[in-house]
């Protein structure tokens, strides 16, 4: 694993103008990413998803992004035109969304959607594209790729849908994958199976991964490094293997308030939030 920096984010801020005033969703997030797996963890409203979306230029129209630096290799992401973005999104940086039910096109067969993703970035004929798509469905361990290829998204299960999504996002062979709660809508065993598929593909193809999730334990068992976010700030950065050495009271509180299978029915420790955590 080389240490070259793929993505460099410095002092990223995302601000939304709403009728009720401005909302500072992300407040000065900085990190460098090599060919590694970075987890971004936080509760709802912590700014974890907005951080991921800002990197891909997917912030909603009422949002403003500022950053001292947002570079992908030598590319300054902050100044890309829509035309230039189309060469980056999908091809070089790709995103796996949470729920396949809402992010796959319901009136297009799965095969056609994967082919579309591939041919957007690779000039190949229809036969070759189809061949590639079937191979990719096999790579995400779908047992009957031909059948799934001809199915519509509503005809497959949630776990299968998410495998299709991974196939679609990985087929252009991007360097960086941003996965935003990719398995949160799935059952636990299916969730882990889908993560194993992602694990293997990311490893084999040497991709970098940003894994965004609310589940601190899951993320730390999967990633190399974890950023813990609270109200738009990164309050702690941890080596994933050193989760038990977390120092910030928010991180510790998040770990402590999880119910455990220890036969103890007494009350769970409550996370007492302190105003100082939200001060940048």
């Amino acid at each position, binding site marked *: 694993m080389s240490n070259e920096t793929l993505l460099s984010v410095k002092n990223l801020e995302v601000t939304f103008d709403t009728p009720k005033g401005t909302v500072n969703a992300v407040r000065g997030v900085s990190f460098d990413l090599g060919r590694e797996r970075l987890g971004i963890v936080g*509760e*709802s409203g912590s700014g974890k998803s907005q951080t991921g979306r800002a990197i891909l230029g997917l912030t909603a129209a009422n949002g403003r992004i500022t950053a001292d630096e947002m570079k992908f290799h030598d590319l300054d992401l902050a100044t890309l035109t829509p035309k230039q973005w189309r060469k980056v999104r999908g091809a070089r940086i790709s995103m796996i969304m949470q729920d396949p039910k809402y992010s796959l096109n319901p009136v297009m067969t799965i095969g056609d959607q994967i082919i579309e993703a591939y041919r957007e970035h690779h000039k190949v004929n229809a036969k070759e594209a189809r061949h590639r798509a079937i191979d990719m469905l096999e790579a995400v361990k779908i047992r009957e790729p031909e059948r799934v290829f001809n199915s519509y998204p509503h005809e497959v299960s*949630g776990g299968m849908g998410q495998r299709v999504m991974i196939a679609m996002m990985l087929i252009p062979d991007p360097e960086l994958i941003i996965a935003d709660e990719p398995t949160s809508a799935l*059952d*636990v*065993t*299916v*969730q*882990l*199976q889908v*993560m*194993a598929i992602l*694990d293997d593909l990311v490893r084999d193809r040497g991709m970098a991964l940003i894994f965004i999730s*609310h589940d601190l*334990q*899951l993320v*730390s*068992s*999967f990633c190399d490094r974890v950023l813990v976010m609270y109200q738009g700030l990164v309050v702690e950065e941890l080596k994933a293997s050193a989760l038990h050495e977390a120092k910030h009271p928010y991180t510790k*509180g*998040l770990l402590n*308030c*999880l*119910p*455990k*299978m*220890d*036969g*103890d*029915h007494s*009350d*769970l*420790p*409550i*996370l007492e939030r302190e105003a100082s955590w939200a001060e940048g």
Partner: protein
Amino acid sequence: MIEINKLNAWFDDNHVLKDVDIKVPKNGSFGLVGESGSGKSTVLRTITGLVDDWEGEIIVNNKELGPKRDKAFYRLVQMVFQDPFGSLHPRHTIDRILTEPVNIHGLGNSDARVVEALNQVGLDNAFRFRYPHQLSGGQRQRVAIARALILEPKILLLDEPTSALDVSIQAEVLNLLSRLRRELGLTYVMVSHDLAVVAHMCDDIAIMNHGRIVERATAEQLAEGTLEHPYSQQLYKAAGGYDRAIVDTFVDWD
């Protein structure tokens, strides 16, 4: 308090519950765990009268249930649903949401009851005249619990009551549910996909798969991890987080 024998249920031609037996003592807390489609929610929905096509014996408070539920049943048994965003009327104030069941049952004195119910779930009186969209997820779930409690039931059926909530909020709501059971002498049947939540909240646990109970365990057995059925073992391992080697041992239970 609740006894279910040989419960079978169907959705059209789909046989969704197969010979389910459950026994919950008074003031007990029983947990049903399983993945989507295991039938765990269907057990609750059948008890509460939301499933039409079923066979078997459901005895609640020494009374066998027929095809219809009367008003007295709903004073005794109330249900809390998973999604606090979908289960509260978006255009009714909290006051109206809580008053409605009181009026349906003609209990009277709704004003004092609403204040009492909000108090029980730890919500300030200021919430009374707000709308659901003005509340956070955790506050909404407290309202849903208050709505169930306002009829002074003895049994609460809890269908994934915290799975839509952040973990810190989940801890607060679980503590609230534990306290209410202690203070009000309630009996719970709780459904969850999360083994740890059920292990924490319940004394007796049943693990369901494809409409059948595959294993029963006590909270102590879960703590020791002494589960026997391979499906329960798989579920138990999956609760431990991501481990590439363990995932390879998983089998599909279709």
